[in-house]
């Protein structure tokens, strides 16, 4: 029991403490790596983490909001095509989907969305984070979003990024105009 408590404490120290040191660069990532900035997220299972937890792997990264009527279903569809292409080429990548709707897309809502969409593969992750973190990440990636209809809808850039093992951006699909095989080609 005591051992479990100690482990829990250790987990808290190792996990929560580094999250507080926002924008201080962990030395192990290059200065132009997306992982060089520490931004905490909570995934759809309620687990806290950062994108840098995927360091060493390729990451397909994009933004959605689950109430989206227009282009987000297209985004999810495109992510599925990317997954199919990965499977066909025997490649692996983590698929990280960040919600731009910090007010409504709580981890529970994201979990329900995932279930409803049958996106149950273990390499798919849905993240919630405070609005300022979403804005920082989207600015790093060169995208933007804007609430409309009193916060009911968002207008946003349609971008999917591919991050390399060190967190550097290796490929960008903008507005769905890049063929999927070309997008996943850099994955080794």
């Amino acid at each position: 029991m005591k051992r479990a408590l100690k482990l829990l404490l250790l987990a808290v120290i190792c996990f929560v403490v580094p999250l507080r040191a926002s924008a201080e660069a962990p030395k192990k990532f290059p200065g132009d790596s997306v992982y060089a900035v520490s931004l905490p997220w909570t995934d759809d299972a309620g687990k806290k983490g950062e994108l840098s937890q995927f360091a060493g792997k390729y990451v397909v990264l994009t933004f959605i909001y689950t109430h989206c009527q227009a282009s987000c279903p297209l985004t999810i569809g495109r992510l599925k095509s990317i997954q199919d292409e990965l499977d066909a080429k025997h490649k692996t990548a983590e698929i990280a989907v960040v919600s731009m709707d910090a007010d409504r897309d709580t981890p529970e809502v994201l979990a329900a969305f995932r279930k409803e969409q049958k996106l149950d593969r273990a390499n798919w992750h849905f993240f919630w984070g405070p609005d300022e973190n979403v804005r920082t990440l989207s600015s790093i990636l060169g995208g933007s979003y804007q609430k409309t209809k009193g916060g009911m809808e968002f207008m946003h850039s349609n971008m999917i990024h591919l991050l390399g093992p060190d967190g550097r951006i290796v490929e960008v699909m903008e507005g769905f105009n890049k063929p999927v095989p070309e997008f996943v080609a850099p994955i080794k």
Partner: protein
Amino acid sequence: MISRKTTALIFTLLFFCASAFAADVKPTKVLITGGEFQPLYGLEKDATVVRVGRFLIDSLPVTNGEYFAFVKTHPQWKKGKALPLLSDERYLEVWKKGVPDAQQLKQPVVFVPWFAASEYCHAQGGRLPSTFEWEFVAAADETRANASRDPAFIEKILEWYSRPNKDGHLPDVGGKPNYWGVSDLHGLVWEWTVDFNSVFQAGDSRREGDALKNLFCGTGAEGSADRGNYAAFMRYALRNSLKARYSTANLGFRCAYDEVKK
């Protein structure tokens, strides 16, 4: 005639009082009671105005002196230390020795990326103003909350936009306050807003390319809500040309704050 000793003393005082001087020009937070206004872009379909709520905003742009104090406590933003992910090579270009010189302390800080501006404001318990908030306050002249329909007001702003900035030296902050008691929104530096990059025309997000074309085409101003305000059009065009990591001459910022409910 001032003796050499006195001169030395003055310089020493100047040097040691650098941060005190900065404190001297510390901006006050001005309450903006909000209201409706017609932004140039970003209106939703069928809407004619947007509502801006109550918020507080710095009466002055952030100065080199104030930014230097921030850098001292946030070493990740020292000149030469900022992450390439978050800043470009022109970061704090006018701080020739890595720190501002005495002359620059009360001048507005420029060559700062959005990320740094954003973090600075968070460190002050605030945030960057939204584009709507900024434009709402900037629509005021000295006597009227909304002078954006007055050709003479727009003319004055355009005259500043066309004036080249001499050898990178800017005047000190503290120009004549406008209707709200806010100074230097026009005539000194351009300013970051939190959502500087989210200018989309109302409509489908898949047509954002058209929105950009509308912005950059000269005739684009015709499609905007306020045909007469070419000065506002220029600000939207500038914001849209920026990336969050850019450090640019004449681009500074000020902070806004949510009103603390009593």
